[in-house]
């Protein structure tokens, strides 16, 4: 019972975090075709900015979370305007600029905070104990925030004016601008949302696990797997692929120990990709 509850919460939390970060990546990727390899670094910097707010400035955690989201989101708008927009459609230069951003952020954090592993204080302390199992409130809170944000994003993308404009742009950018949609404003909004989501995920993971300057690389790989497993252009596919990856990452280590489980998870993703070269819910690039 204990094991089942722990594993299923692990699945849910991991999936929620993967999906949160992946959604931001997918917005930019669907709308402008930008392979934002700096997304992992943005997720990492979110955690560190949250930590700086809480420990250096002594702010309330929830205020710090919101402030971090806004600041990193603003940084995302800056990136969209000066780093991504000039190179739309040029795969090689996009990769280069993303490596530049990643190196600058990682080295900066490395110099300021050092390589030691830090972590945010928990958002809600304490443990929920029942007859059969115990579960910390921290995990419940992490999952609840993640799930609530995902619900808001689904509502935003499907029901609001801006969300529908985002969908229109990802279908056909020129057609959308012919219909009077301000493409630059909407892509800037998407970048704001993507970076803010990544920053929130960074804070949550920083509280739930730990922070390190290179934690973004791992998350970036997961995000890439998720987005390409789901297929380009599919938002709903990301949720299914996120659950699949979350299951693989939390159940396989129980059966096989160590790096072998990671290798098998990657192998499963590669084989799935070979069966469906255009992803499971997407279209060909």
């Amino acid at each position, binding site marked *: 019972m204990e094991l089942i509850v722990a594993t299923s919460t692990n699945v849910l939390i991991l999936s929620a975090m993967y999906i949160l970060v992946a959604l931001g990546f997918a917005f930019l990727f669907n709308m402008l075709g930008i392979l934002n390899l700096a997304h992992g670094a943005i997720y990492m910097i979110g955690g560190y900015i949250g930590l700086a707010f809480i420990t250096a400035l002594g702010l309330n955690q929830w205020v710090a979370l919101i402030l971090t989201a806004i600041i990193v989101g603003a940084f995302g708008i800056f990136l969209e305007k000066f780093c991504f927009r000039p190179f739309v459609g040029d795969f*090689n230069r996009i990769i280069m600029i993303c*490596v530049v951003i990643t*190196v600058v952020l990682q*080295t900066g954090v490395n110099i300021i905070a050092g390589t030691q592993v830090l972590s945010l204080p928990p958002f809600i302390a304490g443990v929920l104990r029942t007859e059969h199992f115990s579960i910390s409130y921290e995990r419940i809170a992490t999952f609840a925030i993640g799930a609530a944000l995902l619900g808001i994003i689904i509502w935003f993308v499907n029901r609001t004016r801006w969300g529908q404009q985002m969908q229109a742009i990802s279908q056909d950018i020129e057609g959308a601008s012919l219909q009077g949609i301000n493409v630059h404003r909407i892509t800037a909004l998407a970048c704001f949302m993507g970076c803010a989501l990544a920053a929130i995920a960074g804070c949550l993971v920083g509280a739930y696990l730990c922070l390190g300057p290179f934690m973004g*690389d791992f998350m970036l790989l997961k995000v890439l797997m998720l987005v*390409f497993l789901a297929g380009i252009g599919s938002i709903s596919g990301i949720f299914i692929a996120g659950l699949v990856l979350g299951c693989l990452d939390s159940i396989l280590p129980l059966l096989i120990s160590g790096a072998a489980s990671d290798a098998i998870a990657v192998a499963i993703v590669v084989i799935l990709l070979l069966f469906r070269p255009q992803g499971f819910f997407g279209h060909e*690039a």
Partner: protein
Amino acid sequence: MSNNQISTSTLPKSKIGRRKWAKPAVYAGLVFIIALLPVFLSSVYILHILILTFIYIIAAVSMRTITTSGQFPLAHAAFMGIGAYLAGMASKWLGWSPWLTIPMAALATAVVGVLVGYPFARLRALYYAMGSLFFGIGVVQIIYAGGVWTGGYSGFTAIPPLFPFGTPKVSYYYFFLGLALVSIIALYRFEFSRIGTNLKAIAQSHLVASSVGINEGWYRVLAVGVGCFFVGLAGAGYAHYNSVLSPASFGFMATLWLAMYVLIGGIGSFAGPIIGTAILVLMPEFSRDLKIYSPFISALMLGIVVYLMPQGLVSLPRLVRSWYLERRKEKKIAQVS
């Protein structure tokens, strides 16, 4: 086009001869200078950096060979790792001579590349890049999981060196210079052969290429095989030179940096990866006094190339020339008016 031909044929014979020999002469002179470098450099450390540069030049040039077929291989550092670990394992556990393991590991890497490239030929463009990236991650995870056989997390140590212990670094220098030269010449011949032209045709349009009778899948797998052979060679040489291997040096960031070596020099020209590797490997070493800040130097250079030189560093002379001509034109206009 025809105009051009007439003008060259009317040139005096001596001039054609001079043109034909000018470029090879310049390259031979460069190689000569590089070969003489150890005479002037006494520092072992600089020799070490130059040796690493030669190894990464082989890797970067072979990566570009695969990209000419329209595939962006983000598993290239992992293939280097396959070559390095195969060579290391063969010489450490089976006791083979390094002179045997280096070619064998290169061949084995090529075989792995072909076996992987065959199913991956289904994937196109970004999906290929991502599929190969995931494959590379899988390879690194397998190395981590290898336990005693690969050293796992603590790294693979005590690989027998190529030359007996105590040999000066200069012999390694000439060995890797020769290896790099042979690889560069072979890959150059490959790229400008009929096969290389076919690969470029596939990169431009796989539909048109297959409609004129180019077997797309076969040629793409061939390109991967050739690229992997040379990167396996580089990796095997690295294993026997360094005698310590760590899986992290073949992981995700290593592949991205290899891609940066190719892209900063210019992916569109053969000399691009050579120039790019030389600059990106050597430059952080000159700024070694900055210690922890030195990644900023690489980032700065990448940023300059991204914003100012879309075609990479190779296009710098052309850009300067066009800028100069533009300015002269403006001056003339100003004088006339």
